């Protein structure tokens, strides 16, 4: 039986009179990778921020980890969610390892990855003394992903993780994301580079003007990983 890790029910998000999301419904299964596509302003980032609990929907409901018997408000389950934004979400003045040590100490008592391990896993040298503000854009993206990995989140929300990355680094990140799938973590990622991320995707969700216009099976599912549960979940996206 597949478990639903996150669920949006008729979610709308309004900024004044502008609707960033319009009645988005989706059920996300554990261990799947969802690719969210759409033009600038389509609502991709708003959807991710809503799932992360950083935004409250104006209408509708968002539940995370509900399949485990306790439907949770994302605001209360944030520590189990990893969110990577366009910005680094790191202090420019600290080196990568200093930033990660700081964040790791905010997850005390949890089973965290060590800052050094997290940096190595994204291909960064933990010994690098340079402050993050002096990193190249690609290094910043990787350091940002390392921050997300610190708390071993079950749900990874990655907003444009490949932007400003060279192709080699992007493929390295893709390989890393693939290892998360084998650990039954759920990945939701937005990108403008469809061809790059698509091979990893179980489902491709396309947003337009804040509404879901299509949900297709991704190549990963077509290769044989699709289950009946996934089909039902896919069918529930309106």
């Amino acid at each position, binding site marked *: 039986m597949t478990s639903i890790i996150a669920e949006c029910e008729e979610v709308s998000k309004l900024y004044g009179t502008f609707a960033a999301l319009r009645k988005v419904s989706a059920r996300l299964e554990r261990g799947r990778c969802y690719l969210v596509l759409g033009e600038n302003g389509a609502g991709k980032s708003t959807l991710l921020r809503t799932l992360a609990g950083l935004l409250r929907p104006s209408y509708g409901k968002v539940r995370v980890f509900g399949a485990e018997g306790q439907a949770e408000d994302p605001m209360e389950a*944030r520590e189990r969610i990893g969110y990577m934004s366009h910005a680094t*979400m790191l202090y420019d003045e600290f080196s990568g390892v200093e930033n990660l040590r700081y964040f790791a100490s905010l997850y005390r008592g949890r089973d965290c990855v060590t800052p050094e391990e997290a940096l190595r896993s994204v291909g960064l040298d933990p010994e690098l003394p340079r402050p993050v503000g002096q990193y190249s854009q690609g290094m910043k993206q990787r350091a940002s992903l390392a921050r997300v990995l610190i708390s071993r989140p079950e749900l990874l929300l990655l907003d444009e993780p490949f932007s400003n990355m060279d192709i080699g680094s992007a493929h390295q990140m893709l390989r890393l994301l693939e290892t998360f799938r084998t650990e039954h973590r759920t990945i939701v990622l937005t990108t403008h580079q469809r061809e790059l991320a698509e091979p990893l995707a179980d489902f491709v969700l396309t947003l337009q003007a804040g509404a879901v216009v299509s949900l297709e099976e991704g190549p990963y599912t077509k290769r044989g990983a699709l289950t009946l549960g996934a089909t039902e979940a896919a069918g529930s996206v309106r």
Partner: protein
Amino acid sequence: MRSGYFVTHLKKDLQLEWRSKDAINSMLFFALLVVVLFSLAFDPTRAVSRQIAGGILCVATMFAAVSALNQAWARELRNQVLDALRMTPAPAASLFLGKTLANFLFVMVVEVVLAPVFVMFYNLHALGNAWLLVLVLPLGTWALIVNGVFFAALSIRTRNRELLLPLILFPIFIPALLGMVMSATAILTGEGDAVLWIKMLGAYDVIFTTVCMMLFEVILHAE
């Protein structure tokens, strides 16, 4: 466990300031300038100095502190670090207390440097219990900083936050400013009851620290 989070935030803010020295440098130069300019503008006698010195010191510290408080959350805003902090299980109150104590220490450093310059320029000699100043300055500074950090967080999502902060902060700070000035003047002139004003400052600090800590979570998670 919770005090551990607070220490983590405090350590981080102290480390960041140690590397950049942005807040301390800007506050120090501003406060020194105010003190020197006032002494040149009024050229007060020793007796007049005792009457006005408390007020000048408080106002100089207040304006200097606002320049730092305006930047109190700037580093958290720059790369959306605040969102990353919102995602962690660390209590909001620990973030607030860490930031408040760090800024309090920065302002205290400025006051410690400023004090001898102040005594020299205004030719001061306290007629009351000078040691009471050791209570007045930290209590008054805490009142300013605790409110300043809170209202700086409240105004970070507004467009004119540099203007908004003093507009909200100064009226709220008036009772503490009054307590600070009156007690400092009472100590310097030897007239009046400084202890009463110090008690009022203490009560103000307890009330506002509690209220700010309780409300900070709402401010932090506001959209």
